[in-house]
């Protein structure tokens, strides 16, 4: 059996299974896993923060131009990916119980202002995913189910990191980021992008990426947690062990949140241990699962499409009455 055929059949099976959940074909998301109700709670920020406090200091090998070497294939977080970033119990087959990704504030909640929390809850109640607390009305569908992707979700999938002098190149399943680390300034603040405008710099062992210019038209997870066009994000990536990158992102927007807040999780090098949720490269991981280890193509990334195979799903979501999600405008 050829790999692409298996992958296609698997995708079809998944699509059929997922149909009542109204299509989460999701461009940037890792391949879908299915969980039983008795799945133990996946560790996220709380556990990782405690673990990393005990790690001995680590100095990463250097690239030829003398900066820490973060290159290789890295997994996204374990568990249900970015289905719901706050702590939750088992919700459905794709949403296993897990701790919050939020490491600060310590309660693991996104520190929304009151109107923003109401908005998030309104979005969540209109997902029509069969989740508890829904109104039964359809409001918005996750933008990524329409192949609309953005930050910071992209950073919650697996990726291959390539470094060149003055550049970090992050390749994910079907999209990429290129982060200049040459000290250039941000673009003008009126220029808005789904991925924002990233500027990197090295602080010792840590790559610090400052992101402005976000258009706020995508979500932070698939459950309606949102940011906006004034949001500022700062990522910190540090190799804390040979095969682990500590990924930390701080999100700040006084028009939406009461204070800056932070998510964190460990990115494990593909093939070296925990990191169930999707390897760096979905095709390659899928291949490793179904093909003999000797498959010479196992490490290759084959064509990933989103919109190309998603038309029927998009049409369905439109006909079901979901509205287009535009950036949220804070009340005056």
């Amino acid at each position, binding site marked *: 059996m050829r790999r692409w055929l298996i992958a296609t059949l698997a995708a079809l099976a998944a699509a059929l299974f997922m149909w009542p959940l109204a299509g989460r074909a999701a461009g940037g998301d890792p391949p879908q896993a299915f969980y039983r109700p008795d799945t133990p709670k996946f560790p996220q920020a709380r556990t990782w923060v405690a673990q990393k406090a005990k790690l001995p200091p680590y100095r990463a090998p250097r690239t030829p131009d003398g900066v820490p070497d973060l290159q290789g294939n890295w997994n996204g977080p374990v568990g249900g990916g970015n289905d719901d970033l706050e702590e939750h119990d088992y919700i459905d087959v794709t949403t296993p119980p897990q701790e919050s990704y939020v490491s600060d504030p310590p309660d693991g909640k996104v520190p929304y202002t009151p109107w923003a929390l109401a908005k998030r809850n309104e979005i969540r109640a209109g997902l029509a995913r069969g989740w508890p607390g829904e109104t039964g009305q359809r409001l918005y569908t996750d933008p990524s189910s329409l*192949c609309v992707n953005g930050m910071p979700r992209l950073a919650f999938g697996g990726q291959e990191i390539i470094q060149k002098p003055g550049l970090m190149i992050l390749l994910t399943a079907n999209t990429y980021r290129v982060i200049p680390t040459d000290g250039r300034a941000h673009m003008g603040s009126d220029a808005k992008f789904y*991925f924002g405008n990233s500027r990197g710099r090295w602080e010792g062992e840590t790559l610090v990426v400052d992101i402005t210019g976000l258009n706020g038209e995508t979500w932070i997870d698939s459950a309606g947690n949102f940011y906006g066009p004034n949001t500022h994000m700062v990522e910190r990536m540090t190799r804390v062990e040979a095969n682990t990158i500590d990924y930390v992102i701080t999100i700040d927007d006084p028009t939406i949140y009461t204070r800056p807040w932070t998510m964190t999780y460990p990115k494990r090098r593909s093939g070296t241990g925990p990191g169930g949720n999707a390897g760096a490269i979905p095709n390659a991981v899928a291949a490793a699962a179904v093909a003999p280890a000797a498959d010479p193509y196992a490490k290759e990334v084959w064509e990933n499409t989103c*919109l190309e195979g998603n038309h029927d799903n998009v049409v369905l979501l439109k006909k079901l009455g979901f509205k*287009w999600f535009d950036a949220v405008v804070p009340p005056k």
Partner: protein
Amino acid sequence: MKRWSAGLSVALAAFALFALAPVPGAAQTATGTYTPPRTAEGQPDLQGIWQVLNTAAWDIQDHSASLGVPAGRGVVEGNAIPYTPAALAKKQENFKNRQTLDTENRCLLPGVPRITYMPYPFRIVQQADKVTILHEYSRVMRYIYMNGNPHPEGPIDWFLGDSRGRWEGNSLVVDVIHFNDETWFDRAGNFHSDALHLVERFTPTGPDHLLYEVTVEDPKVFTRPWKMSMPLYRRQEKDIELLEYECGAYLLKQEWAKPDSPYFNTP
């Protein structure tokens, strides 16, 4: 005798200068004299941000201007494309119905070589075992494997095909098969079938220029192989970077707002 010899030397030198000097924009062959820098792995270094400066995205053949379409010299060597009679009729039909038939209008992956000469920059990234082309257009990523693996066994129908590369002198030579028949060469309806076979050559002709040549073979559509060639220019702006053109997002947002968009009524 001496004078004759000196005269000959001067003539030879002049000829050599003329023959070897790079001529911007002129059709050059893959045996240019420019020696590019090498990567750490010892490959010719083709990395950086490149873009065409031509009108092939609209029409790969010589064409006049119309509203929103700049006139242009084509990129097809000899200009004529050797369609079979049936294929030529289909090309003309495509042109007539291009608004609805061209999958670029639905923001689907535009295929190879079309993605290369769309009016958006792209970045070439080299590693030992693959060359990755990052396109600003829809953040398309194209992997060209250099790991010695042959094309995987087909049939496979991919928008961008399966690309296997090798170095010939300073040229990156890429063999591409396993296409689908959903993409065109341009907005003028020039098309191919799933039997398309391309051989692309990226040859550095100077520090800021690549010669991009594509040999096109498709026995279901063309009576013989034919060739396109064009220069690729290194973007010179000091802080040039790939930005974003999220075609699908803009399209869906626009169509979502229309009460009776045909987008949601066509397969």
